[in-house]
């Protein structure tokens, strides 16, 4: 999976933008001992200013639109949005609802996104998404 050592540990800030919790508990499951991504130095942080990756769950409701934008702007470059779950990708089961500002590419058109489809995706899929995000950040010079 990883051919060379990490230049940098990935720190993740988790944003719930109106998710049903299914993806959120799978993100926590990925962090806890069975899947244990913390052994790679990947951990959740309490502030977007410390984060390399924003793990975004949910279809982005109208109420959360400005908050998601603000969190994204607070993160230092280079940064990646890890969209966990189908509803962030297309609206998922909630598409056509009157209270959605999403999907993500409408709210954050300039962001680099790694999409993890599934409702909810398995922890293995989330880890795969994190590795893709890590590869992007390494190539963008995030580890220098």
């Amino acid at each position: 999976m990883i051919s060379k050592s990490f230049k940098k540990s990935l720190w993740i800030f988790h944003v719930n933008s109106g998710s049903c919790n299914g993806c959120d508990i799978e993100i926590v499951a990925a962090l806890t001992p069975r899947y244990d991504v913390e052994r790679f130095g990947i951990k959740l942080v309490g502030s977007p200013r410390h984060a390399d990756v924003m793990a975004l769950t949910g279809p982005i409701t109208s109420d959360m639109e400005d908050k998601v934008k603000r969190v994204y702007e607070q993160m230092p470059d280079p940064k990646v949005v890890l969209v966990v779950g189908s509803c962030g990708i297309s609206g998922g089961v909630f598409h056509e609802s009157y209270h959605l500002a999403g999907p993500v590419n409408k709210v954050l058109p300039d962001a680099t996104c790694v999409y993890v489809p599934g409702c909810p995706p398995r922890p293995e899929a989330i880890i795969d998404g994190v590795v893709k995000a890590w590869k992007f950040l390494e190539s963008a010079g995030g580890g220098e």
Partner: protein
Amino acid sequence: MKYTVPIGPIHPALKEPIAINCTVSGEEITDVDVVASQNHRGIEWIGMNRNNPVQTIYIAERVCGICNFCHPACLIMAVEEIADIDVPERAQYIRVIQSELERIHSHLLWAGVAAHELGFDSLLHYTWMVREKVMDTLEIVNGNRVTKAIMMYGGVRRDIKDEHVPKIREMIKYYQDLFDKVAKLFLEDKTIKMRTRNIGILTKEDALKLQAVGPTVRASGVKKDVRQDTPYFAYPDFDVKAITPDMLTGKVVGDTYDRIVVRLLEVKQSVEIIEQALDEMPPGEIISEQKIPKLLAKIKRAEGEAIGRHEAPRGEDIHYVKLKSGFESLYTWKVRAPTYSNIMAWRPMLMHHQIADIPIVAASIDPCLSCTNRAVVTENNEEKWLTAEDLHNLSVKKTKEMMK
């Protein structure tokens, strides 16, 4: 000097978006205001406009990813009552097993989150490691870890086969052996006791006045449990008793510690129910109507209204459904999730405690906000103010109508 400390909608202690505005004087909390709506996704609107009733089962699952059995269960109970759909005995037992598996996973998840809010992260990791056992069982039985897609009008979609039974029994044994250890970790640890004993007290009077439900109200000493009061599915065959903290500690305080006690005892109770269900499960069909178009036609012809009630891990969940003959979707669908009742308890719990206690007290009701943010009321584009008395009278009137 008074300050307002805004917590949320995005906050590391909150797993879901909600805003709690606390007014503080020094370290002491003097007022609490809760602003909810960030998680509103228009689910009821989708169920009443876009989807047919079978599709609505799957949107009901997405009301909440953690308790994704209880919402379809309530919806289906209500629709089955209106459309007069029979359910085979075996399906009712499978529903009970699924419901209790969900309770185990949800309570263990909560225990981990509570440990995290106390800053005891090694206990969070331990609890979530233990929880993987029930997730594995869910995956074996349902094919997916979280979302189950098991419910269907007139039964369930997947049987519990003979090869599943030893795996489920293995899980039962695992949790029975582990109970004492987990109880010791949570209940005898000095730090946890100091952080939770006498913190966030909800008195019995307040609990009844605010109409709290589930473990929150049971921890205050009220013996209220839908499985005990009005049994549904196959629950009449089981001897389910509402669990109160005095069963283990001998007294009821109604604090955060008591809420931990109640949830741990409920995990034990759920394991026992699953064991009994596996022993007594009768053979036979698992669904009364296999053909979906026939089922949809039957629901389309049906007319009437009903309430589905289910004891979800967080408390009593209620779905109100009205069907109208010739109408493709549900004519009316109203979800009242348990957290909606419990959220009001935050105020008496948080008052006069310290800022550092907010995360654990807020987490102690096991808030599930994706369940809660649902209702938007508009009437002919006019704002109409109803007093508490009006609402009470309306609800009494409606309940009397329903009980006829």
